[in-house]
């Protein structure tokens, strides 16, 4: 496989995953922004943390002075200058897919291509309160369709392994960013306050990784901030946790090593991170600092991305 192909497949998977995560973040932000605030107005300020979680705060404020629901939604869904907007992600995914048309199965390509064609019919002006959830659902279903086509039709060779790496590095990054932005609502001193807004915030964190229902199945109790952190960081069964993302990453890297008969620095890095998560204990993480833990994880995850790119000649 060409190094360029591996690079394109990896990023294609990341863009599809990112579009889906973006849709989820917007949905959660919108839920909170609609809540009436004590006194007057709404929780428009919530958008600030949505933008931060999406890694889009700087870009947004370079363009807009104020936080308004309309501007934020437009920026996150449709703005071509925002490389992480849903539109940019779908466009980049399709561009990569087209460049690597030979590596994709027909089902994969058609799901990408039709997503792009259908997205062209969605008009930003029509983004009313009733329209938005429909569009966000659509984005998530397109991502699911692509992943489904990939899982069902692709050969289990390097095409699949690089796609898996892209998906799970992006997913781990996304979950870690949500924690990075929201960590303070999970800290004990805030918990003492324990107001209604905290409950909403805790629920929002879980919703932004589609885990608000599964949490109750796993923990059989009300939201506890340390449990939420544990669920998102360490739980092996939770499909968007850092732990399960790293389990998938390690599998994909091992499969690549088996296929190519060679191991690199990225293999050691991924295993080390996986081990930290596997042996991790939430109490100790809180003691030594949740925020520091997350920041360390994000930088490890980024380093792994660079090492994979280097080991497999992505930019040769």
């Amino acid at each position, binding site marked *: 496989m*060409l190094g360029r192909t591996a690079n394109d497949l990896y990023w294609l998977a990341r863009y599809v995953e990112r579009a889906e995560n973006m849709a989820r973040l917007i949905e959660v932000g919108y839920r909170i922004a609609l809540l009436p605030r004590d006194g007057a107005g709404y929780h428009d300020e919530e958008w600030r943390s949505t933008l931060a979680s999406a890694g889009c705060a700087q870009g947004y404020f370079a363009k807009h002075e104020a936080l308004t629901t309309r501007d934020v939604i437009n920026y996150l869904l449709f703005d071509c200058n925002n490389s992480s907007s849903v539109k940019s992600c779908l466009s980049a995914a399709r561009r990569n897919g087209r*460049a690597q*048309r*030979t590596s994709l199965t027909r089902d994969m390509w*058609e799901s990408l291509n*039709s997503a792009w064609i259908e997205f062209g019919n969605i008009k930003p002006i029509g983004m009313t309160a009733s329209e938005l959830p429909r569009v966000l659902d659509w984005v998530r279903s397109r991502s699911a369709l692509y992943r489904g086509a990939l899982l069902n039709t692709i050969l289990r060779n390097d095409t699949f392994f690089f796609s898996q790496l892209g998906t799970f590095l992006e997913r781990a990054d996304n979950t870690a960013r949500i924690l990075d932005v929201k960590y303070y609502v999970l800290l004990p001193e805030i918990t003492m306050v324990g107001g209604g807004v905290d409950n909403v915030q805790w629920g929002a964190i879980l919703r932004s990784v589609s885990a608000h229902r599964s949490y109750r199945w796993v923990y059989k109790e009300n939201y506890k901030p340390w449990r939420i952190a544990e669920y998102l960081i360490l739980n092996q069964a939770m499909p968007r946790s850092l732990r399960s993302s790293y389990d998938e990453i390690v599998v994909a890297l091992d499969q690549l090593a088996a296929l190519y008969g*060679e191991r690199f620095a990225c293999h050691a890095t991924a295993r080390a991170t996986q081990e930290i998560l596997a042996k991790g204990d939430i109490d100790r993480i809180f003691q030594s600092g949740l925020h520091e833990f997350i920041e360390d994880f994000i930088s490890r995850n980024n380093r792994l991305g660079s090492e994979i790119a280097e080991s497999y*000649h992505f930019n040769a």
Partner: protein
Amino acid sequence: MNGAGDGVRMPYQAVAEWLGTQKLDDLKQKLVEAETLFRRTGITFAVYGSQDAVERLIPFDIIPRILSAQEWRRLTGGIEQRVRALNAFMYDIYHRQEIIKAGRIPEELVIGNSAFVPEMIGAEPPLGIYSHIIGIDIVRTSENDFFVLEDNTRTPSGVSYMIENRETMMHMFPDLFAKNRVAPVENYPDHLLKTLESVAPRNLGREPTIALLTPGQYNSAYFEHSFLADQMGVELVEGHDLTIVDGTLKMKTTQGLRQVDVLYRRIDDDFLDPLVFRPDSVLGVPGLFDLYRAGRVTVVNAPGAGIADDKAIYSYIPEIIKFYTGQTPILQNVPTYNCRNKADLAYVLANLAKLVVKEVHGSGGYGMLIGPTASKEEIASFRTKLEAQPDNYIAQPTLALSTCPTLVEAGVAPRHLDLRPFVLYGDRVRLAPGGLTRVALKPGSLVVNSSQGGGTKDTWVLQD
């Protein structure tokens, strides 16, 4: 579709009957379905210079173009003869130039031709073949008259449409294929791969590695490049994926550098190697040409293969066929006036309204005058261009192209068409039974080029 007498010619009978039972609205609905299918699969082409539509569909017509087995046999013989002769001609002019010495073709027409690549003189391509993949444009003017309009010996495109049009037709009208014995075209990619393998550098001692070189996804034929690479199971590479190390061509893979033995290039000669051709080219590989000359990699088609489809050479092709094969041409050439000759020029200038005038180096239907349909102003402005640079033009009589029923807004109506069969030449000549039928969608129009709004049809060759 119809012959000289009344009624439908034999090969079309079953389809004509079927067509008689179809409702127009149903057919139109099928056409919409077909287009959705094409767009979803991404069978699009880019139009240069058009900003609004980056990717467009080539209009597809659902009524097939049909040739009988007997008609096809005749075409096959003529095409094979032509392909062998054209390659023998290229071997000759890049070596001993016997044909020039024999005075059968003017020296300046070959040596002074911009499509002649002097760097190729003395090079020894494997099996002595220059043009391995040729698309021959053929038109029919009556039941028994086929003319070759053009031989595309550089990097002919359109073969993916031949295959995808068939896919679409079989998907939408399986019953038609049950009633007609249509020769399959789907093994073209296998044949292409065999052809490419057969011209690999000698004494490799292993299976050759093939790659397809594309200018990238913004090229108008990108879909075809990726389609063929996919169907053959070979890497689709761009110039920057390739490098030359230790006297071999290498592609940059996830496992480091891997040798490439045969490069099916879909970029023009000019862009192949900045050290030899255009220095500003970023699409090719620096040093590729020397490697090719040294026999370390085979480039398909060979650099310099364009000399054989040059429009100024075209009128000499009957002569070329006789010279190298000793036979008379099976397929006719269209009578051609070379405006570089004074007498021809005078005739052309006096008869502009009757002739088709083409630029010698033009392609895709650009820069041509179709006398009978041109306005007085167009003819006048073309006359000025022609007088200023007569060497740059050839002219041909307007041919009465055959027509085939075609679904248009008002219903089913005759439209003019041509045919481009795709022939492969390696260890042997391989010809897919069919080709790309292009159809002019405007009533009376003779311009079938997709860049000028022409469409395509599935092309059937019936089996005995």
